């Protein structure tokens, strides 16, 4: 090839194919398990990182909840871990704020984005479209490692002398931009935050680029767009959202970084006096940060929740033994949500001092976006209607997803209206709202995905009894935690305060204690999940190829799949993903890759 002046197209084509044939399993521990190019290993790495992150985030929330319920009771050991800000075991308000910031940042970025999107998406998207790997395995590996370094940089903020930043996961300027004067943790800690999030953006951009290209270019024969499973559709739409959203947050973080270390004043106005010191900045606008941040931030909500939509739409029919109602409408609604997510960012800023007319402008699309979201929920309920549901843990978590999504979504109707939001925005009502609709719902999607796909990922079944206990207790638990928050908010309980000890707020203390008990118990219940996860990984019953009698391509290969996903067999797709409740060769379903007559893998 090198010496031929003009390679013929056929020649070039053949060389490329030969190069692709070298797609052989790697050798050595590092290449197989650490710096792996295999999308399945990378997916598991993302999920394992999210597991560590979720434990850290959960422990932070326990500390916060404990302090809110018992503001004067010392936490054993806290005085040793944080000698200055947690002296004697009772945390200072600043420590509380830093825990809140880190809880939000870790949960939103490193759990809700990585697990359902980068984790499950990496593992299953290529298999579901019948590809051997992602389009760019090296980018894929880089995507994980850049994200992982971002995670380490974020955790490092705990270890710097002044501690973690206290500006919330939204890092509102100007406090996040002026440096040390604004409070403990806003020195080096906040700089690390900006670096970490910038790295995270780079990692997710690489991932999004890979997901889109794989979906469009590497589908196997017969896998038309209309035959793609709903989960693939959801990851595809999510990566399109991510491609634009993360590329806006990235420069925003760079500008924030420049404000902090480069002496610029993009987000800092003139004449700002903080800690009795006139800040040496002028001309900038704190609102600009909010615009850039929320232009990313609102799509981010859908980056977290759309993979959950995909998982529920993928898992539910397998246990309802019915196709999803209105499949095209479902996909159309997900795409509409993706598009509308770019038009509503201002509803986070009703109280920010922007022009009141723009509040109306942002309120309208916010209410409009509830229409496709409601249609999706109705389609799921329509799918369940009249179904003889198989009550597996995965199915239960799907139903739980619908429940918490509706419970959290309904309060969204209130918050979308500026006049009501003005009262509620700074209160626990909003805390309850977004934890339900984005946090818990996405977590339930992750749980449903885990219970459903675990057999395929590790070749062993999870324990269903433990799983059902996990579901029931978690389901009751999250309602006990987040439902009362709506009530607190309506009663005027402000958020972001570390304790409510003054006379005016004291009345809310019993309810805060109840929430604290519920949070501690619900957190402890997750031990059931962790036990199940680790026990099943090594001791669970060996999983068959298709334990759930599902139809999509991942169930047409062994559990776990071989390195190249399908071995020597080339899957060919003959039908859509949703053929349940029909006469099939091995039951009431027809698999995507099995032709009408003949065995598995028969040529088209």
């Amino acid at each position: 090839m090198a010496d031929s002046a003009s390679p013929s197209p056929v020649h070039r084509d053949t060389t490329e194919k030969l190069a692709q044939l070298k797609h052989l399993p790697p050798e050595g521990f590092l290449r197989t398990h650490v710096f792996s190019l295999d999308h399945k290993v990378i997916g598991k790495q993302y999920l394992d990182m999210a597991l560590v992150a979720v434990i850290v985030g959960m422990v932070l929330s326990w500390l916060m909840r404990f302090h809110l319920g018992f503001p004067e009771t010392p936490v054993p050991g806290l005085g040793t871990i944080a000698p200055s800000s947690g002296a004697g075991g009772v945390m200072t308000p600043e420590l509380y704020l830093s825990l809140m910031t880190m809880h939000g940042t870790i949960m939103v970025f490193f759990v809700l984005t990585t697990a359902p999107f980068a984790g499950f998406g990496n593992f299953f998207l290529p298999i579901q479209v019948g590809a051997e790997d992602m389009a760019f395995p090296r980018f894929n590996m880089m995507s994980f490692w850049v994200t992982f370094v971002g995670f380490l940089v974020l955790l490092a903020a705990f270890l710097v002398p002044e501690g973690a930043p206290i500006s919330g996961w939204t890092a509102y300027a100007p406090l996040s931009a002026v440096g040390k004067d604004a409070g403990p943790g806003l020195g080096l800690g906040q700089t690390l935050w900006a670096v970490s999030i910038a790295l995270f953006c780079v990692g997710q951009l690489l991932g999004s680029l890979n997901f889109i290209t794989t979906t469009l270019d590497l589908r196997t024969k017969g896998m038309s767009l209309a035959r793609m499973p709903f989960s693939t559709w959801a990851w595809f739409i999510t990566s399109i959202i991510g491609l634009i959203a993360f590329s806006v947050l990235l420069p925003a973080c760079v500008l924030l970084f420049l404000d902090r270390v480069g002496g610029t004043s993009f987000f800092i106005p003139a004449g700002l006096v903080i800690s009795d010191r006139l800040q040496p900045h002028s001309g900038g606008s704190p609102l600009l940060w909010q615009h850039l941040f929320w232009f990313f931030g609102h799509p981010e909500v859908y980056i977290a929740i759309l993979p959950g939509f995909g998982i529920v739409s993928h898992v539910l029919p397998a246990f309802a033994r019915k196709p999803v109602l209105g499949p095209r409408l479902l996909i159309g609604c997900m795409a509409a949500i993706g598009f509308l997510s770019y038009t509503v960012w201002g509803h986070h800023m009703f109280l920010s001092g922007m022009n009141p007319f723009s509040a109306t402008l942002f309120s309208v699309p916010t209410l409009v976006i509830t229409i496709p979201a409601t249609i999706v929920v109705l389609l799921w309920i329509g799918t369940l209607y009249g179904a003889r549901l198989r009550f597996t843990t995965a199915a239960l978590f799907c139903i739980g997803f619908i429940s918490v999504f509706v419970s959290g979504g309904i309060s969204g109707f209130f918050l979308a209206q500026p006049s009501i939001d003005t009262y509620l925005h700074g209160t626990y009502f909003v805390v309850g709202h977004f934890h339900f609709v984005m946090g818990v719902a996405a977590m339930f999607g992750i749980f449903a995905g885990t219970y459903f796909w675990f057999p395929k990922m590790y070749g062993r079944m999870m324990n269903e009894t433990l799983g059902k206990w996990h579901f029931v207790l978690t389901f009751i638990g999250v309602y006990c935690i987040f439902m009362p928050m709506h009530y607190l908010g309506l009663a005027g309980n402000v958020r972001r305060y570390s304790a409510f000890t003054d006379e005016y707020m004291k009345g809310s203390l019993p309810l805060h204690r109840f929430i604290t008990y519920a949070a501690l118990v619900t957190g402890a219940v997750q031990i059931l999940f962790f036990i199940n996860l680790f026990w099943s990984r090594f001791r669970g019953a060996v999983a068959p190829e298709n334990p759930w009698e599902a139809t999509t391509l991942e169930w047409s290969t062994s559990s776990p799949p071989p390195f190249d996903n399908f071995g020597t067999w080339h899957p060919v797709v003959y039908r859509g993903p949703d053929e349940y409740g029909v006469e099939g060769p091995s039951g009431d379903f027809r698999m995507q890759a099995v032709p009408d007559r003949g065995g598995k893998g028969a040529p088209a």
Partner: protein
Amino acid sequence: MHDSEMTLGPGALSRAEESPYGIKSRKMAMWLFIIADAATFGSILFGYGYLRLGSPDWPRPFAFFPTILNAAVMTFILLSSSLTMLAAADAAQAGRRSQAVRWLAVTALLGVAFAGLHLREWFTMFGEGWSLSHNPAGGPVLFGASFFSITGLHLLHVTAGVVALTVMALGHQRGRFDAVHVETTGLYWHFVDLVWMFVFPLLYLMNAH
């Protein structure tokens, strides 16, 4: 083509259908990168417009000579480099390898010339007292911050492009990179050119007195 597929047996990605859009994954990825990068430049230019509109005494320090003229020459150089890039892609497509390498080298050199003029301008401005946090002309200090960060981001892209063009020229000569590689690099280069077509009027012409 189907014959070669059969003889190769279980070809890795060969079971994938031809892309419905008729372009290779690599090229698709470049388009996606361009979309993302356009959002990046878009948001940073939005920020510039936002801050500029919010500052009533925004300075207009640039004189026709030397700044605007210099920037016009830079614009001309970058536009010409897009033409030479087209010639390179065209030659690579037709299999005229050495010609393609020559055009790639010319494109890279034009990129270096652009960066050289740009840096000279920067250092002259530094000499006059401009910096990220200082404005010798009076008025908002944001002028230097936005000017240097936006042109800096663009210059970073030009530098990356020059490196990519050099690597591409060397690789194409040895046959490591084919015509699609050259064309994909061209997409990037044209995009960098296109971004400058926004930067030039918004940061130079609008700030001329």
